[in-house]
């Protein structure tokens, strides 16, 4: 029963991520929504499956460690690439620390 609770929380995180991907105005905010909450959802689903089926713990922990290692890395790669290819933020007032054309050099 506690396993179903964790799986339901993970699926709720997925639905929140999908709605945010539809409604966010910008590439970077979409990246924020599309990279963090699927990671949390996957970890919650894997914890729930561990509670339901304890014989698969080793493979599931391997899968969770893999997702936790690679997902922030891939989102960082996309953010850096899209900033270098000239994509700008939607809100012009906010601070862009990577932008060397607008401010002073760091």
């Amino acid at each position, binding site marked *: 029963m506690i396993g179903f609770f964790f*799986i339901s929380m993970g699926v709720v995180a997925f639905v929140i991520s*999908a709605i945010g991907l539809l409604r966010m105005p910008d590439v970077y905010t979409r990246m924020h929504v599309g990279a963090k909450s*699927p990671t949390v959802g996957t970890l919650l689903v894997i914890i729930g499956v561990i509670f339901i089926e304890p014989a698969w713990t080793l*493979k599931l922990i391997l899968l969770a460690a*893999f997702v936790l290692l690679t997902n922030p890395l*891939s*989102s960082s790669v996309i953010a850096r690439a*899209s900033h270098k290819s000239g994509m700008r933020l939607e809100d012009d007032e906010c601070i862009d620390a990577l932008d060397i054309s607008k401010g002073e050099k760091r």
Partner: protein
Amino acid sequence: MFEAVMMVLLFSMFLILIRFLKGPTLSDRVVAFDALSVISVSFLVILALYFERSIYLDVALVFGVIGFLGTTIFGRFIEKGI
């Protein structure tokens, strides 16, 4: 009960697929693809629980590796071109 969970997962995959088809730039599509591959990994985990077969966990691990490689290669393609 697993059926309801899988229906909600398919619904969220459908919403992300709308962003994948509609996204104005390439970066939006790559972000949607990344989220879609992560959601597919957890869908395969729930499918392993539904069919009571642990072979689907290996499929999920390989799918995660392929999705990560695809996202990284698309990032390099956005940054430098082919």
